[in-house]
């Protein structure tokens, strides 16, 4: 069993989920409440990873973070490092790839909160940021939890994007799905089966635990 790859995937999934929560909550807030006419464009861009093959996304990400792109050059100047073939690069790709899996459930959760509660808070002199933190987020917890679980699960199982931008470096970018693929390619079917089974068990346990713990908060199946 490739414990190194499993541990890497867990770290990647946790980091991706945390970053997505930090990014996704404000973005979902904007999407839910903005009245801009071009909002639909942002919504479409956010949802693109749902439609695009991971290989296409990976292909663009590799170009975008490579040393020849402005973003890649800026990163190199700031940190002295390079994004391709690094954990950070993988993180960038994973965040983009799982963005809709966070933003959509969270936006749905926000939209389900009675807007007048927010207005009541504003009228009480409480800032928009504090209202977001004290009213909107607590009331949208089911949607936020759903978004976090989906992002975690989606990143754990991510393959195409990692294949395209990772470079398969053990301990850095060789995630569990890549490891399984390598094992299959190398005809180590027994090892591949073992790791797959472990991944299956881990994913099932995480999801089952989360749903069991959240049952009290969610009256209904949150994915439906």
């Amino acid at each position, binding site marked *: 069993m490739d414990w190194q790859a499993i541990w890497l995937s867990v770290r990647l999934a946790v980091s991706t989920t945390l970053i997505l929560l930090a990014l996704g909550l404000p973005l979902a807030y904007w999407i839910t409440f903005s009245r801009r006419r071009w909002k639909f464009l942002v919504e479409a861009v956010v949802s693109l990873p749902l439609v695009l093959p991971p290989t296409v996304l990976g292909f663009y990400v*590799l*170009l975008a*973070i*490579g*040393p*020849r792109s402005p973003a890649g050059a800026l990163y190199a100047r700031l940190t002295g490092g*390079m994004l*391709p*073939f690094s954990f950070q690069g993988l993180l960038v790709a994973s965040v983009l790839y799982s963005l809709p899996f966070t933003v959509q459930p969270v936006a749905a959760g926000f939209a389900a909160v009675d807007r007048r509660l927010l207005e009541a808070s504003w009228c009480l002199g409480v800032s928009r940021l504090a209202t977001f933190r004290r009213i909107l987020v607590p009331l949208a917890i089911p949607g936020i939890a759903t978004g976090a679980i989906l992002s975690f699960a989606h990143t754990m199982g991510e393959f195409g994007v990692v*294949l*395209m*931008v990772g*470079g*398969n*470096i053990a301990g850095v*970018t060789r995630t569990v799905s890549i490891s399984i*693929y*390598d094992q*299959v*390619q*190398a*005809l180590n079917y027994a090892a591949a089966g073992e790791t797959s089974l472990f991944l299956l068990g881990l994913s099932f346990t995480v999801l089952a635990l989360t749903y069991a713990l959240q049952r009290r908060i969610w009256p209904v199946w949150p994915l439906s």
Partner: protein
Amino acid sequence: MRAVERMLLIALLSTGCTRVQPRKLTIAAAADLSFALDEVSRGFLQQYPAIDVQTAYGSSGNFYAQIRNHAPFDVFLSADVEYPRKLAGEGLAVADSLFVYALGRIVVWVPAESALDPATALRAAAVRHVAIANPQHAPYGRAAEAAMRSLGVYDSVEGKLVLGENVAQTLQFVESGAADVGIVALSLAIAPNVRDRGRYWQVPMEAYPKMEQGGIIVKESAAARAFRSWLLAPGGRGTLQRYGFYLPVN
């Protein structure tokens, strides 16, 4: 269905063939063969116009796994003779049809605009990432690793290695600028749409184990035999050679 087959049979006979041949030939070929094999097939079709050659390109390891599960291929052209050999050993292919059609060659490749000299690039200190195919399952990756060891650069390069899923992706890593230098197949480096994009240095053949690229007939048929013969005859060999697949000296 029967009627259709009968009509086709008549059509085949009327083209002047003296023997009834299968009308379709399905070939599973390693991805690096794509340019060469298209031309080989064109030549083959001129000789055997009644045979409809259909080629699927992909990873040799994947094809091996698929054929083990009875994928309907007639001929398997692998990047590594080991896969056909195993199939023959397992009784999943026609054992006496095993053949070697080329010896794989590897080159050190840098993009055209790179300041690096491909002959010395592996030793350059400025290099951050060296791309090779995954040695775990890609024959070119194994050859690259062996070559770096015998050239004495492996220890300094090891920490810089990034692994492509196959040689084509390895090339893409370098081409995109994400990696500085890569070790890829000669056939890829001189392929029509790659030729002008980079410079390469041929790694001496004695630096890595002989990479026999071999094939086998999976399902016996006259058409499969005909294709095998064509590939190994001077016409097919000449085409392969132009695309970088050098042949073993018999």
